[in-house]
């Protein structure tokens, strides 16, 4: 049971989340007509043995999409942050009751 520390809800079991794939690839703009860019985004993956930036959605909880850095060799999670780049992310980070 991998614990993922949701910035809003605290540490939760991984089965509260939905996996969303590689977060290190760049999505083209919605109106980008270049098939190469879309092909790379949809199909090409680095598949590292080591730290992997990936998307997880906390579907049982706050439903936020998160970016998780997970070591694919031993599941150690190095960081978790909200995927949305928001000026408010910090102020809304969960204040853990002691």
């Amino acid at each position, binding site marked *: 049971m991998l614990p993922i520390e949701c910035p*809003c*809800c*605290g540490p939760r*079991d991984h089965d*509260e989340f939905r996996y969303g794939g590689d977060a290190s690839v760049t999505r083209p703009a919605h109106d980008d007509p270049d098939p190469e860019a879309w092909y790379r985004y949809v199909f090409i993956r680095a598949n590292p043995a080591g730290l992997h930036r990936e998307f997880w959605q906390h*579907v*049982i*909880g*706050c*439903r*936020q999409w998160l970016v998780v850095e997970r070591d694919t060799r031993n599941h150690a999670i190095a960081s978790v942050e*909200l995927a*949305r780049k*928001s*000026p*408010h*992310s910090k102020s*809304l*980070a*969960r*204040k*853990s*009751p*002691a």
Partner: protein
Amino acid sequence: MASPDFSLSVVDCPLIQIEGWDGTLAQFESSLSASLGTKLPASVGETVRHKGFLVIRVAPRRLWLALDDGAQASSLAVDPDLGCSVSLGEGRVRFRMAGADIAGVLSRCIAVDWCAPAAAPGRAVLTSLHHVPVLFLRSGETACELIVPRSFSQSLSDWIADAAG
């Protein structure tokens, strides 16, 4: 079902959801706070009680107003440039539970630590009950509520009744 040590009753759950846009969150919150007449819970898991309703933060920019029994969930007017609201009163029910055995029964249902500060009276925890997303609200020392999607109501109240033995 009811015994002196554990009781479960299922009631309606009038509920309004309000969400603010990302770029104007501070304005949205102060405007909402003013129109509700109460401050808002600061982070996910916190609640603020006001007359007639409980305000719960369920996501960074999303709040639920859980109305008290009998109240009508009419829509709340929200400035469309700041946010929006939708009534969720028909699609959910409340499981109201109490009793000396409540922590034991719930330990067989949800992965929430009854003794942890995050589950103390006044706190809300989004969790799963038999794989279904529910909202746990701790209302007292030996009392709590679960807000459950209506279509799962029968199945999940049976699940809890089985746990209560």
